[in-house]
Every structure is written in C-alpha cells, then in structure tokens.
C-alpha cells in the first residue's frame, strides 16, 4: 500500500507527531526501569528531586540483587526451564505439525481442531486442578513442574505454526525423494525437516519467550526461593510485606527483560513471522 506525502507541515501533524508520541509512550516504562535502577535510594525516595535523571548513578541496587538475593539462581532456573520446555515443545510440535499437514489418515482434521482448541485454553482455567496433578506426579516445587506443564500451551502453538509452515512446502519435493528410493521417514527427516528450519526457528524463539515470561504456573507450582524463576522471584522476594525495594526491583526487572529483548532483537523477523503466523494458522 503506497502512501503519498503531503506538505511537510501536514506530514508532521499526521505522521511524525503521532509516531513520536506512540514511540515515547511505548518506551517510557523501560526508561523508567533503567533510571530507577541506577538512582541511589536517597534520590528515589525524595519527592523534591527531579526523578528523570540522576547526577550520582550507582550500581548498589545491582549489587544488592546479586549479593543479597538469589537472583543469579533464578536467572539460571528461568533459562534452564525455558530451554528444556522449548526443546520438548519443538520436538513434539514438529512431529505433530508434520503429521497433521502431510499425512493422510482418518483423524487428521479432527485432531487438528482438538490441538487448535487446546491452543486457546488459558492457564487461568486449569491452574487449580493442574496443581493437584503436579503434586500427584511428585514433581511439585521442582523445575519439572513447569517444564512439563509449559508444553501444554507451547506444543499447540508450535504444532499450529509448523503445520502452516509445512503446508507451504511443496509436496512434490518429498515425492521426488521417494521416487529416488528414500523411505517415508527419510523423506520426512532429510527433506522436509531441513526445509522447515525457518519455521522451527520462529516457533522456537516464540516458545522461548513465552516460557521465559510465564507467571501463573510458576507462581503456583514453585514455592521455595531457590526454585523460583525471575518473574516470580523478583515479584515475591523483593517485596517484604508492604515494603517495596524499588531500586533492586527495577534492576531485577531490567535484567530479567534483557535476555528476551536480546533474543528478540536478533530474530525480529522470525518473531514477527511467528506472531502473525500464529494468528493466521
């Protein structure tokens, strides 16, 4: 869709000003995280001071976070959980997505529908009974409680995305391989899977950020401080009763956001593909 440019003034009013406001509003909370995390407490809790900048930046809040809380441990937990649950979900989603997109069997359409429905089931509906299930398996308060439950929303997503992706790969490529003597499995693993790598990457990045960010299951299933993930740890361990330690809180929020922001910035296009692909299916 081509957009023509009017006079500079008109373009400023209809384009640059709204764009600046939009970008400013989007990014302001992040600026606030950064500035809070480096301002000393005497400035943070003084209403007379201009809160927008500081002349005495400090790393005390980060020091507090690393030395006096279990933040490094939470970071490791979050990473471990996100990587393993993404791996499980990609494995399952790749196989299931291939089966639903490529193989002819009686239950294909109805199974596709079932997986689409599970994709729309929110954690809020299931967390109470799921807590019982997790306990019954004896994995409550261990990383496995969330590693095995995150795939409930990651697998349907990966399956749905990869199913759409496999449908865009021409079936003829596989047929050629079959004629040249490849078995059904070889055609799948050697021909179709390598062609689906961009789709796998998109699904993987999206799944990784989803599990890095998850809150409800982690809040309910993980209770000891050394088992927590960053979102839970920062939220529950840096607030004592009614006292909020805003400096360390914002330092933790910043550090917890940076890894996903980095992963995302390297793979923006893949992320956007996953985002729009997940919607279109």
């Amino acid at each position, binding site marked *: 869709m081509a957009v023509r440019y009017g006079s500079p003034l008109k373009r400023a009013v209809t384009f640059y000003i709204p*764009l600046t406001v939009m970008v400013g509003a989007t990014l302001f909370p992040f600026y606030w995280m950064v500035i*809070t995390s480096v301002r000393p407490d005497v400035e943070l809790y003084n*209403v007379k001071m201009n*809160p927008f900048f500081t002349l005495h930046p400090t790393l005390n809040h980060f020091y507090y976070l690393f030395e006096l809380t279990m933040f490094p441990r939470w970071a490791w937990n979050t990473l471990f959980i996100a990587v393993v649950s993404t791996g499980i979900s990609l494995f399952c989603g790749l196989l299931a997505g291939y089966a639903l997109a490529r193989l002819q069997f009686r239950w294909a359409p109805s199974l596709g529908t079932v997986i689409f429905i599970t994709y729309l089931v*929110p954690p809020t*509906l*299931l967390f*109470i009974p799921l807590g019982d299930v997790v306990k019954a398996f004896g994995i409550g308060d261990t990383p496995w409680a969330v590693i095995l439950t995150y795939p409930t929303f990651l697998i349907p997503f990966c399956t749905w995305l990869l199913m759409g992706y496999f449908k865009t790969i021409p079936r003829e490529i596989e047929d050629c391989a079959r004629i040249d003597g490849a078995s059904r499995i070889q055609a799948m693993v050697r021909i179709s899977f390598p062609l689906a790598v961009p789709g796998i990457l998109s699904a993987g990045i999206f799944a990784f950020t989803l599990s890095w960010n998850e809150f409800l299951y982690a809040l309910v299933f993980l209770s000891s401080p050394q088992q927590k993930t960053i979102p839970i740890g920062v939220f529950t361990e840096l607030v004592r009763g009614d006292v909020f330690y805003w400096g360390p809180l914002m330092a933790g929020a910043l550090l917890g956001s940076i890894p996903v922001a980095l992963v995302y910035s390297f793979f923006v296009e893949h992320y956007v593909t996953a985002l729009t692909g997940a919607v279109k299916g």
Partner: protein
Amino acid sequence: MADQSIEPILAKSATPGASAIPAPVVVVAVPKYRRPRRLGHLLEQEHILAGALLAPTLVILTLFIAYPFVLGIWLAVSDKVVGRPGNFVGLQNFWVNLNDTIFLRAFQNTFVYTFIATVLKLALGMGAALLLNHHFRFKRIVRAGMLLPWIVPTVLSTLAWQWMFDSTFSVFNWMLMNVGLISQRILWLGDGTTAMGCLILVNVWRGMPFFAITLLAGLQTVNPDLHEAAEIDGATAWQRFWRVTLPLIKPIMLVVVLFSMIATFADFQLIYVLTRGGPYSSTHVFGTYAYEIAMRAAKLGQGASISLFLFPFLLMVIVFQLWYIRRSD
C-alpha cells in the same frame, strides 16, 4: 490388522470340524504382507506413522490439559480444601459464588476490563499499524522497538508501572504537579475506579503492539493498485480506509481481536501484580479471585468453580472461530 488376523485363522483351519470355512485363501494371501515386520516398514504406512508422530503430543496434552480439565469440573462440584479429600456438594459452590458480592464485582470487572481494553487496543493498534505502513527512516528500528512491551515479561514491566503509580513517588503526579495541573497527589491505585483505569491502561500498553504488528502484516497484503484506483475515482483518504482497506483486512482483524479477547478475559498476572485485586477487592477478575480463594484461602473446590466461569465464554469464542475458519476455507 493383517498380523493379528492370521493367527486365529490358522488355528481355526487346524481345528477339526472347521473345514467349512474357506480359510486357505486367506492363509496364502496374508504372509506376503507379513514378512516385512521391521519397524521401518510399519512406519511406511501413513496412518501408523501419523500415530507415532502424534503420540508424544497427545500424551502430554491428555495428561496436562484433558485430565486437569475433568479434574477441575470435579473440584468445582466438591468441597475440597487443601489437605483434605473433598465430598460431592452439587452446585453449592456456584450458588455461593452468585451470592458473593466480591465475585459479582469480579464478574463485572472481567467483562469491563476485556471490553474496554480490547476496543482501545484495536483502535490504537490500527492507528499504529497505519503509521508504520509509511516509508520513513529508522522504520525497522521503530517497528522492532514497538514490540518491546509485548515481549518482555509482563510481570516485570507491570512492576515498573506499579512504581510509576506509586502513592507517594508517582512520576505522573510529579509531572502533573510541576506543570501545575494538580495540587494534591492522585492515588492512582487507591480507589476502585481509577485502579481499573490504570489496569486497562497497562493492558492496552502491553497488548497494543500485538495488534499493531499483526494488522501491519495485514495492511502489507493490500494491493496498492486498489488504493490508486479508488483515489482516481475521487475517494478521500477516510473513504479509502473504510471502503478499501478495512474490508480487506477484516479477516485478520477478527482473528486478532478474538485471540486478544481470550487472553484479556483470562488475564491474571497484570492485575495480580498491579493491584492484587485491591483496593478492598474492587478490581478482582475471575483469574485473580480464583487464585485468591484457591491458593490463599485454600478452598480448592470454590476456586475451581470460579475459574470454570471462564469456560462458557471461551467456548463461545472457540466455536465462533472454528465456524469462521471453516467458512473461509
């Protein structure tokens, strides 16, 4: 099939008196299919391969979605509390809910929150998508930065908002007071109505990029020739948007709205972090109130009955969406 059917037939033909059955024909035919018994050959058959490929997914989804769902329905009609087995109590939990003023407030809040936030996200997201559809310098960076609220952990960005809404040190109050618009601090999260406004604001801030980016993807599929043709025919920019762009991106718009509605309707983390349902339980939604009752008050049955209230609405959206997909196929 063939593997299993051969044993009984052989057995039968060996039995005296069963000679009336024309077994020999089958016996001759079957071994041809029987010889390649290796796994690889079994997987040559598409329905067997499909079963093998889908098995891990189905096991996980059955164990952690289907089973908990059934268990949740059982909990909702039981009086289970933490540490004690529950008894069947029929619809008592639902009856208790409908007579609980906090629950009724949460019920109303859920719909208000979902409706207002979704409308705002759609309107602002559409505006943002139209802006991003222009050609300008740093477009890629701006587009990438736009998505940040959507990708960082909601809990962490919501904590930043909570600090910005702080009763004493709110930056908004500082700005408004220095500009001279207010003389007294506004307690942003101190009253049910303004707190709900803040929740909606943060939700819109977080969810708008999702609308913007998906709608932008929709806009990019609109053929520019159509716009040119409409312009030559004398259509104004406004008319072109309503008559050309909107009908073309309606399908993707509808799907985005439905996705977002489900997520907003079932929201938990944003509300739980920003207000914890307060002040005075005035900003609870289904998700946070279910958590409050099940996890803090330890009434699992009662809590499960509250989260089950999400189900009819979800079902409606899912049925509508499936119907829509079928129709457009």
